[in-house]
């Protein structure tokens, strides 16, 4: 035996085996590494056999988990050894030790190629296997043709071809271009005619990779796959060697059915019928047998068949057979089958019409949730989560809650998140939802993320009926001996806001509520103390008539924390103390929290974002499409302290006002809002802050003097305290839109629009009547902008084509959208970009003028007197030559006017007019209809009155003459009249916009007027 020669290796392995502990092992390994290193150093003396022995030792040491940072070259060099045993070691050890990017591999590429194209089959196999395992891009580029040749060669034996197939698969994955689809599709189909099952097994893997990439190209392979499956299922012409416990190669059957799942459908009725016959046989003919191996193998085929049936969306009858089978599986004791039953049933949720049948198995599934095996519990949890809807939410969530107490730590976070989401999505009533969340916090407080308790607070605030109930409930929990800190947070928040609603109940006087809360203060961390302080301030305010004793108690606490090292606590203490001494003024500032605007649950969003396996993901999606319980659609109540603000025309962003909901039939939100629930990043950002921000953390500016602190974050915090008008969060542009537009009329690149979320830049190139603009849409945030839409409203004279604008702009990304412009004829009209996007709850819609103005199609041209005058004279009188006295001109020195005209590409030709107060201008205008037309302009100014001038224009096109005259007039007369002061307001955070009214001089209003 080969091993006989490698005594040294056996001795070493024995030594390692005899080591008593890790330390001894390390010493022995170090010794061996030293030995091998020295031997490799004077390589000359090494025989191929010795080299082989040492290389195996290296592999062994590496397998034990020790770093082997030398000897790689020796391993690689064995590849080019002439004899099989050395070569084999070289190939195998190289593919274990090196990765595809290793430099040494490049050295070997020639030897490898020689082996592949050589005549020696065994060498070919070794080389193909190594390339198949670790070949990189370089291998793909230099070896793909050779490998393809081997795979297709009729003279090659199956043992080489099967390796070539998988080698090609590797090369294809490294560089898909190496397989030319056009030529390869037919060859792939031919390969499937192969009789040898070894070659078929590996070719099928290649096919799976190819069709997953491009199923259309390989449609001819589909009937062949069905044929192979039929051959196997009927056990025709399957050699004994490929039959496993009586089952014709279960692995090839599975692979073939997998390949079929990549074709979206089967059109040919014959193929479809044959396939369904085969599948029917598998579904009905798979029995449970005693022999474990046979049982497993036949069920491997059965589960793959189930997946294929689901994929093909078979007839109802067959589907119900599948569900029935799965129903049987989820109830069996054998753990593997039960696990797979649960897993596949979760996948089945994606198929329509089977929900009700699956629900019948709820009891068994819940039983699996209590299985001792965590693998099974996880599958059961996923399935329960997927199958939950309004009808069974109560049962399922209660099971999850019960299980939570005994669940292992590894699962608690997932479990509580899922329970919270289901409770929210499918709550039959809101008080139940509150119960569930409080139980979750109570049982698994450590695993409850802030999102969960923020959400329950939002619901309580938005639902008046819920407030006394929630307040009473949290108070009960506070009486428990050990209360989780999260529970203290929720309780403090809710009791601060609503405990006065309980005042008449026994044990609920302000004093008693205060003392229950205050008991917890010594046990909590600094993040909770501010919430407690807010609650105290609110309780104090609600105490009517004032209770002197309580006031002294609370004031003492505020005074104590006035010098707290934590800035948040200190600020709150100082401010509440000062505020609470103001008496009546306190009422406004510490008023009840305004309702939250309805937004998508951050929890659900999180669950959707989270990395979940595809089956689960689809299940979530499926759920999301279904109608959710009405209970959680926040009933909209317009706050009493403010009528909805008038929405001025031209307001930049009309945020959806929730009041629209009530006018509908109080159905689901999706009915009202045609847009799918959106990622609500800003909402999430503000959400927590809004909840945590105590009333009074943001004090209106006149109170700032009290705190003496300029809270930078107050603007954001403000959403919690400012009057309700804020619900219409307007997104204000940064800078003046009109000014930006005018600047861009003169230059070719710059910023067209900017607001807190997006910046739209523009870069333009103009050539004759063609223009190419590139819009740069830059997302300024760390969250994506979604529902991005850009529409060009071109005037009649411009042909514009905007390339596709992506629907989503990733965080901090910039998207470039080229826009092709063709000018058809002269006109002063401007194109408008109608742009909208969604950020959080804000739908922003902006209409922007695009600087594709008349002057962009002008080309200045120097004209000599000899050229000018004949032209000027030949164009006599209207409509080709027009004259007008213009009044109300912005007074400016002549040189400034010359510069202005020059910047519009109207070239001043000095010396043509003897009067120094006159300007003569020449330019060429380009459009598709008119081609190049020379335009001549003469402007006569009056040095005594700079506000008026006489302008004469001439060109070969009457429209052009008129339009250009009007254009120049506009530039000289109508100066952008935007007052600077208000427009230059600093870019305020969006949520802090306290004034919903858009001033009359707002650029947006102006723009709207202009449009």
């Amino acid at each position, binding site marked *: 035996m*080969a091993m006989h020669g490698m005594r040294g290796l056996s001795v070493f*392995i024995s030594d390692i085996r005899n080591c008593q502990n890790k330390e001894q092992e390390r010493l022995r390994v170090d010794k061996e590494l030293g030995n091998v290193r020295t031997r490799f150093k004077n390589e000359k003396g090494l025989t191929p056999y010795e080299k082989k022995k040492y290389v*195996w030792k290296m592999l062994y040491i590496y*397998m034990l988990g020790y770093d082997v940072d030398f000897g790689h070259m020796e391993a690689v060099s064995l590849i080019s050894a002439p004899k099989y045993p050395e070569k084999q070691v070289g190939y195998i050890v190289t593919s274990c030790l090196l990765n595809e990017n290793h430099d040494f591999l490049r050295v070997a590429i020639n030897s490898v190629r020689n082996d592949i194209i050589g005549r020696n089959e065994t060498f070919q196999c070794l080389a193909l296997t190594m390339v198949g395992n670790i070949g990189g891009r370089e291998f793909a580029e230099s070896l793909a043709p050779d490998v393809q040749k081997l795979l297709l060669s009729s003279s090659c034996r199956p*043992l080489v071809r099967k390796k070539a197939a998988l080698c090609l698969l590797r090369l294809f994955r490294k560089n898909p271009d190496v397989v030319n689809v056009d030529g390869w599709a037919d060859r792939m189909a031919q390969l499937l005619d192969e009789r040898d099952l070894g070659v078929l097994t*590996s070719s099928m893997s290649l096919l799976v990779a190819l069709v997953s990439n491009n199923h259309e190209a390989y449609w001819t392979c589909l009937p062949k796959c069905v044929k192979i499956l039929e051959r196997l299922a009927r056990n025709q012409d399957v*050699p004994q060697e490929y039959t496993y416990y009586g089952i014709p190669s279960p692995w090839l059957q599975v692979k073939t059915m997998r390949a079929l799942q990549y074709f979206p459908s089967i059109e040919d009725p014959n193929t479809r019928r044959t396939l369904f016959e085969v599948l029917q046989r598998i579904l009905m003919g798979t029995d449970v047998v005693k022999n474990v191996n046979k049982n497993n193998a036949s069920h491997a085929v059965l589960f793959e068949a189930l997946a294929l049936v689901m994929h093909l969306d078979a007839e109802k009858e067959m589907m119900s057979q599948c569900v029935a089978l799965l129903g049987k599986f989820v109830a069996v004791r054998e753990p593997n089958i039960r696990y797979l039953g649960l897993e596949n049933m979760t996948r089945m949720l994606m198929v329509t019409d089977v929900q009700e049948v699956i629900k019948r198995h709820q009891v068994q599934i819940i039983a699996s949730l209590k299985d001792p095996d965590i693998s*099974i519990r996880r599958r059961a949890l996923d399935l329960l989560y997927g199958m939950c809807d309004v009808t069974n939410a109560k049962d399922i969530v209660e099971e999850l809650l019960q299980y939570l107490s005994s669940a292992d730590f590894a699962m608690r976070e997932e479990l509580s998140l899922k329970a919270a989401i289901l409770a929210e999505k499918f709550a039959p009533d809101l008080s139940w939802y509150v119960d569930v969340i409080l139980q979750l916090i109570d049982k698994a407080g450590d695993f409850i993320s802030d999102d969960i308790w923020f959400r329950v607070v939002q619901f309580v605030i938005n639902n008046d009926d819920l407030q006394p109930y929630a307040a009473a409930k949290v108070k009960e929990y506070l009486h428990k001996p050990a209360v989780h800190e999260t529970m203290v947070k929720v309780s403090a928040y809710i009791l601060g806001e609503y405990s006065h609603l309980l005042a008449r109940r026994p044990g609920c006087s302000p004093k008693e509520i205060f003392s229950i809360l205050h008991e917890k203060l010594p046990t909590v961390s600094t993040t909770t103390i501010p919430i407690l302080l807010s609650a105290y301030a609110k309780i104090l305010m609600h105490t009517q008539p004032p209770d002197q004793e309580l006031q002294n108690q609370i004031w003492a606490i505020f005074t104590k924390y006035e010098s707290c090292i934590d800035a948040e606590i200190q600020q709150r203490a100082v401010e509440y103390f000062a505020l609470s001494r103001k008496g009546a003024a306190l009422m406004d500032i510490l008023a009840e929290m305004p309702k939250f605007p309805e937004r998508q649950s951050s929890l659900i969003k999180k669950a959707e974002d989270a990395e979940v396996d*595809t089956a689960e993901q689809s299940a979530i999606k499926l759920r999301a499409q279904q109608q959710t319980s009405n209970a959680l659609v926040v009933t909209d109540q317009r706050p009493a302290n403010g009528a909805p603000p008038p929405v001025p025309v031209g307001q930049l962003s009309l945020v959806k006002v929730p009041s629209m909901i009530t006018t509908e039939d109080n159905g689901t939100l999706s009915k009202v809002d045609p847009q799918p629930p959106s990622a609500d990043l800003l909402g999430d950002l503000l959400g927590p802050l809004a909840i945590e921000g105590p009333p009074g953390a943001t004090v209106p500016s006149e109170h700032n003097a009290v705190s003496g602190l300029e809270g930078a974050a107050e603007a954001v915090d403000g959403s919690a305290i400012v009057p309700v008008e804020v619900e219409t969060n307007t997104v204000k542009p940064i800078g003046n839109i009109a000014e930006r537009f005018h600047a861009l009329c003169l230059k070719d690149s710059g910023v067209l629009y900017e607001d807190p979320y997006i910046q739209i830049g523009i870069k333009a190139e103009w050539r004759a009547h063609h223009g190419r603009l590139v819009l740069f849409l830059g997302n300024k945030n760390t969250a994506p902008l979604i529902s991005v839409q850009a529409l060009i409203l071109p005037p009649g004279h411009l042909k514009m084509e905007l390339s596709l604008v992506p629907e989503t702009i990733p965080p901090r990304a910039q998207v470039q959208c080229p826009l092709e412009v063709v000018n058809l004829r002269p006109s002063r009209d401007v194109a408008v970009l109608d742009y909208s996007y969604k950020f959080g709850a804000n739908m922003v819609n902006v209409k922007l003028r695009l600087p594709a103005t008349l002057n962009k199609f002008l080309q200045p041209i120097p004209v000599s007197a000899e050229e000018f005058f004949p032209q000027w004279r030949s164009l006599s009188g209207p409509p080709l030559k027009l004259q007008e006295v213009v009044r109300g001109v912005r007074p400016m020195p002549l040189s400034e006017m010359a510069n202005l005209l020059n910047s519009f590409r109207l070239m001043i030709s000095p010396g043509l007019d003897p009067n120094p107060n006159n300007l003569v201008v020449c330019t060429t205008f380009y459009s598709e209809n008119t081609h190049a037309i020379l335009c001549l302009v003469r402007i006569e100014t009056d040095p005594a009155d700079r506000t008026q001038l006489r302008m004469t224009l001439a060109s070969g096109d009457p429209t052009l003459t008129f339009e250009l005259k009007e254009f120049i007039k506009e530039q000289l007369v109508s100066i952008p009249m935007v007052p600077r002061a208000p427009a230059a307001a600093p870019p305020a955070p969006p949520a802090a916009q306290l004034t919903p009214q858009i001033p009359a001089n707002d650029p947006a209003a102006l723009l709207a007027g202009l449009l």
Partner: protein
Amino acid sequence: MGIRFILMVNKQGQTRLAQYYEWLTLEERRALEGEIVRKCLARTEQQCSFVEHRNYKIVYRRYASLFFLVGVDNDENELAILEFIHLLVETMDRHFGNVCELDIMFHLEKAHFMLEEMVMNGSVVETSKANILTPIQLMDKAS
């Protein structure tokens, strides 16, 4: 769909064979092997043969003192892999005659040769025991 690695580990948690089909650094391998060995070896006979770990699954089977652990993608057919392990063991049995941990330890290169004939690039190449063993038998004859 694919096999990411095949491990053979004894019940003390010592690795007897490791073959990876995706590149991991030594540290990653050590960490991975540690984690899954801890997870799988603690399981009882009554529990199922599948363990979810990170973003893939371990399909495993125990033969006397030796555990065969195969890491696969999430969408792999678990039972097919489970029986593939058995096919590997039967193939080794045919060659060694009632294979045991020591055979694999002291004939690591042969175990590698067999595996190499059966799996390539994470896909099953050959399931006929005769075909798998032909090259090894040729070698034995030659030496």
